[in-house]
C-alpha cells in the first residue's frame, strides 16, 4: 500500500466533502494494522486511525439502518438523514469483468477520476441541490482500465466505466472532466425521465449528458459562456494522431458541424437523419442549449443550467419525448427560473435550430 498516496487523497478537500472516511475501499483490518505500525510516521498513523474509527461508525450506522428498515420501514425512511455518496474505485486491469478489483493503492489516474467525480457531485449539490444520481446519495462506482485499448466510457446502469483509449485517437477517458460529468449525468437521467435510448429521446438523453458535462467543466474552471473551449466535449481525451489532424474535441456545442470536431453533428432539425446514432442527432439540442446560455450571458451555471435541470426533473418529461416536447418544457422552465425574458431567449434558441415552433406554442 502506498500510504503517502492514500494520505494525500484523504487530505484532499473535495474528497473530504464527498466522503470523509471511505475514500477508497481499504479493509478495516488493514487500516487498523497500519494505524499501529511504528514504521509509519505519527501523522499518517493518526489519519489512518481516524479513518478506521469513522469507517466502523458508518458500518454501525448502516447496520442500524438495515435493522430499523426491516422492523418499521415507513417510520425509518421518514426519519432517515440524507446519505452522503461514497465513492468506490475499481481496477478492471484491462479485462471486461465489472466492477473489477477494489483499488487499495490509487495511482495518479485513479486519483484524477476520484477527485473529478467528487467535483461532479459537488457541482450537482451546490449548483442544483441534488444529492448524487438518485438525489438520495447513491454511492458512486467507477471502474478504470476497462478492456484493452478501449476507446470508450459508459454508464452501465449502475456505475461508470472508463477505457484507456488506443493512444492514437483517444487517451484515457477519465482525463476529460466533462466526460466524467457526462457519464454521471446518464445516471441522473436514468433516475429522472429515463429517456429511451433511441430516436429523438435518445438524442435528448445524450444531449443532456453533454450539456451537464460541459457546464460542470465550465463551473470547474470558472469559464464564462464566452469561453469557446468551455463548449467542447471530450477535449481532454484527444490523443496525438487526432490532434495532429486538427481535431480538438469530439463535439463542439456552439459549432456542432465544425471541422475541428472528430464527431461532427447536425446543427438544425432539418439536417437530422432519424436513423442516425443518438450521439449524432444530439447536436441539435446541444446547439440549442449553447445558444440559449450564450444569449443569457455570464456563467451557464447561474441560470441556464437550472432551466435545463428543471426540465430534466419535470415529471411531464416523457421517456419518449421529442425535441419539440423537450423544448416546450425548457421554455416553461425558463419562465419559472427567470420570467418572460428568459423564456423568450430559450424560445429563440430553439427557433435557431429549427425545432418546431408550432409545437412550442401548443
Amino acid at each position, binding site marked *: 500500500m502506498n500510504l503517502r498516496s492514500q494520505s494525500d487523497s484523504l487530505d484532499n478537500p473535495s474528497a473530504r466533502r464527498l466522503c470523509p472516511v471511505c475514500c477508497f475501499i481499504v479493509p478495516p483490518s488493514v487500516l487498523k494494522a497500519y494505524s499501529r505500525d511504528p514504521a509509519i510516521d505519527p501523522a499518517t498513523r493518526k489519519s489512518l486511525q481516524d479513518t478506521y474509527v469513522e469507517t466502523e461508525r458508518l458500518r454501525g450506522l448502516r447496520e442500524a439502518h438495515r435493522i430499523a428498515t426491516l422492523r418499521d420501514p415507513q417510520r425509518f425512511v421518514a426519519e432517515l438523514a440524507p446519505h452522503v455518496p461514497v465513492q468506490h474505485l475499481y481496477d478492471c486491469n484491462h479485462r*471486461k469483468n465489472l466492477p473489477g478489483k477494489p483499488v487499495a493503492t490509487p495511482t495518479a489516474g485513479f486519483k484524477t477520476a476520484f477527485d473529478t467525480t467528487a467535483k461532479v457531485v459537488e457541482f450537482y449539490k451546490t449548483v442544483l441541490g441534488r444529492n448524487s444520481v438518485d438525489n438520495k446519495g447513491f454511492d458512486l462506482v467507477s471502474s478504470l482500465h476497462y*478492456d*484493452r*485499448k478501449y*476507446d*470508450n*466510457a*459508459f*454508464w*452501465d*446502469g*449502475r456505475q461508470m466505466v472508463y477505457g484507456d483509449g*488506443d493512444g492514437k*485517437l*483517444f487517451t484515457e*477517458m477519465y482525463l476529460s472532466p466533462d*466526460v466524467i460529468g*457526462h*457519464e454521471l449525468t*446518464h445516471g441522473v*437521467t*436514468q433516475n429522472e425521465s429515463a429517456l429511451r*435510448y*433511441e430516436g429523438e429521446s435518445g438524442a435528448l*438523453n*445524450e444531449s443532456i*449528458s453533454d450539456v451537464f458535462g460541459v457546464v460542470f467543466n465550465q463551473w470547474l474552471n470558472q469559464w464564462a459562456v464566452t469561453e469557446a473551449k468551455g463548449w467542447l466535449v*471530450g477535449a481532454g481525451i484527444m490523443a496525438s*494522431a*487526432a490532434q495532429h*489532424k486538427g*481535431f480538438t474535441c*469530439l463535439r463542439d456545442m456552439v459549432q456542432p458541424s465544425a471541422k475541428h470536431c*472528430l*464527431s461532427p453533428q447536425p446543427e438544425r432539425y432539418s439536417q437530422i437523419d432519424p436513423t442516425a*446514432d*443518438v*450521439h*449524432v442527432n444530439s447536436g441539435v439540442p446541444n446547439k440549442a442549449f449553447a445558444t440559449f446560455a450564450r444569449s443569457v450571458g455570464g456563467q451557464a451555471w447561474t441560470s441556464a443550467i437550472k432551466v435545463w435541470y428543471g426540465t430534466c426533473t419535470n415529471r411531464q418529461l416523457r421517456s419518449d419525448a421529442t425535441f419539440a416536447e423537450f423544448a416546450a418544457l425548457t421554455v416553461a422552465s425558463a419562465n419559472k427560473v427567470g420570467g418572460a425574458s428568459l423564456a423568450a431567449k430559450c424560445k429563440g434558441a430553439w427557433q435557431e435550430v429549427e425545432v418546431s415552433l408550432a409545437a412550442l406554442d401548443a
Partner: protein
Amino acid sequence: MSTSADAAGGAAIQTVRIQRRGGLAGLPASVELHYAALSVTQRAAVDKVAAAGATRGSPAPSAGADRFSFRVELVHASGDTRVIDMPEDAMPASLAGLAKPALP
C-alpha cells in the same frame, strides 16, 4: 478456401462485415474480412454469432448509455447476406476489436 455453413442460411460464409456504432464518441467503424483469413478463434466467434439466431432489427441493447452496438453481415457463397445486430455485451471479444474507427 475455408468456409462455414451458416446454420440459418445454409450456404458457406465467405465474407464477414462488422459495423460498430455508438459509444461516447459516436464514431462509426467498420471492417470487411474474408472468413478464410480469420483466426480459428475468430471463425468460431462468427459461427457462434451466426448460430445465435438474432437478425436485423433492434436487439435488447446493453444496459445503460454510451455502449457500442454491432451489426454483423455474413455474406454467403450464394450471394445471400444475413444481417445480425448485436449489443456490446453479446458481441464476442475476438470480433468486437476488429472494427476500429479511422481518422477522416
